[in-house]
């Protein structure tokens, strides 16, 4: 475990020093909030939002989007370490290979949760949240949802990173897999009023349950028209445990060409 913590603290330090990664995960979701949120709220006035304005609704989606970006960037550190040579040192140390994976995933988890919370807390003073369970309980529910979401995404990203040879391929696959999921997760519009076929897809989408839990925690004034926290946390918890363990299942390996 101490080896994992050493690796996690180094990865966190690398993110803090490499400022582009620190800010870029939050920048795009905040842009969505400012421009898409205000634009749709004031220009289109969507009538099917149950509570508040579109910007407030969009916060949960922005938080999930931040987590998607963050887990992708963080798991790409595997490729950066491989290319910089550091991975050789890590693999030559007397550590269990899982300590390496655990350390990297812990760092990714911490960064993802912090970035997602920053987006939530930056947005909160400017939008009209209902806080139906109260501010502190609502925040605790949001933190729990964000932690599970980031566990799930980090596990998925790590599982993919250990199987894909190039960083370009990894980013491509993450974008291909996660962007469509974002679109029908309820991140940008409620799934309640969707056509039946799209609603089925939305319900099969793991991100839907994170968005739903976050909307219920901060945005909604009642549980009506939402899936419900019980189902959200059951599904998120199960998937988070499964994907995180999957992410730890395959140890990274350097390929020797036989030179």
């Amino acid at each position, binding site marked *: 475990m*101490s*080896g994992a913590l*050493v*690796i996690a603290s*180094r990865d966190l*330090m*690398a993110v803090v*020093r*490499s400022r582009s990664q620190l800010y870029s995960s939050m920048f795009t979701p905040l842009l969505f909030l400012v421009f898409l949120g205000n634009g749709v709220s004031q220009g289109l006035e969507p009538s099917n939002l149950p509570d508040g304005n579109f910007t407030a609704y969009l916060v949960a989606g922005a938080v999930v989007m931040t987590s998607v970006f963050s887990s992708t960037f963080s798991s790409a550190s595997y490729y950066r*370490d491989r290319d*910089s*040579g*550091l991975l*050789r*040192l*890590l*693999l*030559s*140390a*007397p*550590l*269990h290979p899982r300590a390496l994976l655990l350390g990297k995933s812990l760092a990714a988890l911490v960064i993802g949760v912090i970035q997602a919370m920053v987006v939530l807390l930056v947005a909160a003073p400017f939008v009209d949240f209902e806080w139906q369970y109260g501010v502190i309980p609502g925040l605790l529910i949001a933190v729990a949802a964000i932690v599970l979401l980031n566990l799930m995404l980090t596990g998925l990203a790590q599982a993919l990173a250990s199987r894909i040879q190039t960083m370009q391929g990894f980013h491509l696959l993450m974008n291909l897999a996660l962007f469509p999921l974002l679109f029908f997760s309820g991140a940008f519009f409620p799934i309640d009023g969707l056509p039946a076929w799209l609603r089925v897809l939305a319900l099969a989408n793991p991100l839907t349950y994170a968005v739903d839990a976050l909307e219920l925690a901060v945005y909604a004034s009642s549980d009506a028209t939402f899936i419900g926290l019980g189902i959200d946390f059951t599904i998120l918890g199960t998937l988070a445990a499964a994907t995180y363990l999957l992410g730890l299942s395959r140890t990274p390996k*350097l390929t*020797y*060409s*036989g*030179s």
Partner: protein
Amino acid sequence: MPDFALRAANITRTYGERRALDGFSLDVPTGGVFGLLGPNGSGKSTFIAMLAAMETPESGSLEVLGGPPSRALRGRVATVFQENTADPLMRAAEYLRFAGKLFGLSAVDLKTRIPELLARFGLGERARDPVSSLSGGMRRRLEVARALLHRPELLLLDEPTTGIDAEERAILWNTLRASAEKVTILLATNDLGEADSVCDAVAFIQSGRVVVAGTPAQLKAGLRRESVRITWPGVSSEQLARVTAWDGAGEVARDGDVVAVTTDDASTFVPRLFDLAPGEIRSVTIATASLEDAYFQHVQRRAGERVG
């Protein structure tokens, strides 16, 4: 302490169709510097990776410091890889602290060990500088300092001086020799001059197996006294056959336009060359037989490029 730092017997390892190690056998005695010499792709790095328990043999037996390579054994072994492993985002001392923690050193130990090694390798004043700001030679010194941090018994150096100038190379070896007196060093390199100057014993490897092993003196003993390198474009096989048949001529090897010949007496040999090929020879260099000559004798012979 075992008599042998490592013992390898008949090791094989393949990557797809390619056989990286093919019946590789080698005993390296404890202490001193042992050179593993071979061309690129001869299996040196694969063997080093096995010693560091980062690769496993498909067959054969391997013993490192008296036991099989294992994760636990990595704490007694250190590797300086061909590539730098220092994170460019870290500062020099920070990188050593990180590596020390990975190898289980205590904070108290690191507090004294890091400044000591940085000073010894001439990096004391650069301790707080980012790794990315260090020169190529400084980074190599930092890598060697990192490798010595946890006081390894076996130090694996995989082409550690590639890409650095002669002065940096001398600094690195002098410091390393002074800092690692009780460490067995295995140096994988294709720099024959470096091996000749620093190794107590060497093994020539080719196509994944050891061709010959011994001290540099033993390997040079079979050669004639002098080595003649001739730049001879367009040399024919008939001409080389005649040179090989001359009295006093030893090994004759050709590498492109260059013909290397060992001989008992270059002063009688060279004039005969000019008689044989007037106007064809561009240059002739005469030197005392070196490890390089021994290498070309043994390795080229296996490659089937030896003449005569």
